[in-house]
């Protein structure tokens, strides 16, 4: 697999007693959108944070773009970006100021043109001069997405990016993400509790349960594998049977 953008092997993360990620191995190929699914506390965010170099693993190896993450952290981060419903851009700055600063952090060339293009793409060009703190949560999510695409990332990590969007905007954002992925071949790792999101956006899903991958494949494969009709049903079965498994052991 020489087109693997992300190679994770036997990743484990313990936080003083809690095992957040037990033993996880997976690859992500160039241009793929991979969904990390799982119940609350399954280890999705922890995995993403390790991939971003924010948290160091207890053991295992992480290679991004074929390079060891710990040793080439800055170089790798230059080619990645991240967006989450749980982080924000400083609220007392204007949208364009925030984007200007973020662009500076990544050394984006021709920044102002890039900013305008992204703002139009997400249909928020009219918010450019608004103070970020005054935006609705859906609007600020879209600003966060603009920030996440400023540096033309090759790998984009999205932790519940659609968590605060209304169905209409969520739908638009999903379509946009797919479009961007098709046109620019961006690789994405995506977490969401919205199974429709996942079915529509992800090429492949990894089901995490208590820090282990217990199912893997295209959304359709996983649905068939569990003899269900929707990913949501699979999710519920996995979450509950996982608990059953644990009780019997």
């Amino acid at each position, binding site marked *: 697999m020489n087109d693997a953008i992300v190679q994770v092997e036997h990743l484990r993360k313990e936080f003083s007693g809690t095992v957040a990620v037990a033993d996880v191995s997976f690859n992500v190929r160039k241009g793929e959108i991979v969904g990390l699914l799982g119940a609350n506390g399954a280890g999705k965010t922890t995995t993403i944070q390790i991939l971003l170099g*924010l948290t160091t693993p207890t053991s295992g190896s992480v290679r991004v773009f074929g390079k060891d993450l710990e040793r080439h952290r*800055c170089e790798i*981060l230059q080619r990645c970006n991240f967006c*989450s419903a749980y982080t924000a851009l400083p609220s007392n700055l204007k949208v364009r100021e925030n984007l200007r600063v973020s662009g*500076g952090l990544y050394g984006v060339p021709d920044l102002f043109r890039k900013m305008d293009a992204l703002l139009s793409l997400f249909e928020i060009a009219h918010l450019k001069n608004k103070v970020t703190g005054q935006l609705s949560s859906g609007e600020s999510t879209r600003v966060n997405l603009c920030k996440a695409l400023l540096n033309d990332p090759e790998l984009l990590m999205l932790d519940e990016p659609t968590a605060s969007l209304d169905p209409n905007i969520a739908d638009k954002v999903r379509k946009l993400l797919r479009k961007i992925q098709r046109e620019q071949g961006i690789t994405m790792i995506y977490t969401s509790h919205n199974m429709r999101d996942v079915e529509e956006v992800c090429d492949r899903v990894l089901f995490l349960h208590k820090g282990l991958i217990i199912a893997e494949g295209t959304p359709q494969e996983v649905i068939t594998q569990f003899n269900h009709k929707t990913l949501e049903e699979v999710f519920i079965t996995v979450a509950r049977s996982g608990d059953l498994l644990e009780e019997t052991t």
Partner: protein
Amino acid sequence: MSWCRIQALVLRYTYLYTRSVPRVTEIFFWPLMDLLVWGYVTLYLQRIGGVSAPANVFMFLLGAMIFWDILYRAQQGVTLSFLEDVWARNLLNVFVAPVRIGEFVLATYIVGLFRITITVAMLAGLAYALYSFNIFSLGMSLLPFFANLLLMGWALGMVTTSLIMRWGQAAEALAWGVPFLIQPIAAVFYPLDVLPRWVQPIALCIPATHVFEGMRQVLRGEGVSAASLTAAFALNAIYLVAAALFFRYMFDVARRKGLLAKLGTQ
């Protein structure tokens, strides 16, 4: 080191500081209040001391107050910049960008320098206007004193930031408290020999002590003591390196414990 990233961070803090009322009051309002209180205290002391009061008591106290503010604001510049990011839930956006830890720290240094330049300029002007105290009577020795207080402020700032990174919001009060733990023994408002004998060697390990002693010497007209300045610079060099190592260590601890992510989203 990328100048472009440092510039972006400094730009961010400049935006933040000019937009935030508490930050602006920290630069202008609180130092002004300090100046008024100390100014009138010294006026009063002079009055009750009558003719027997040495004329330079006045200068000692006001000079010490302004110098203390340099140290305090330099430390705050570093620590509050970090806290701003925590409060804004923006820390993750900074640390998922290819920002090196050295660039981050350097940006907070630069912000600290800007802040105190503004504060000191204002204090110096007002002290002259209100109490005809001219801080420039310290002459050229003003520069090395200023530099030493700035360096010590940076070192303290890095230590407090590290503690906040490790212990989170619970340690936030340290941002304002740490300098005051040092104040009583740093011979800020009184000479070193007022302190108990056994405290004096400890006081001499603090760079600021040498600055405040040196300042009083200059105001007494005894000129700059090269020994005080050398001691202050040497101690600062040690503390800065130690503080940087401590910061690096706490950053690694924070990454191990997943604290950067927690601080950035809670």
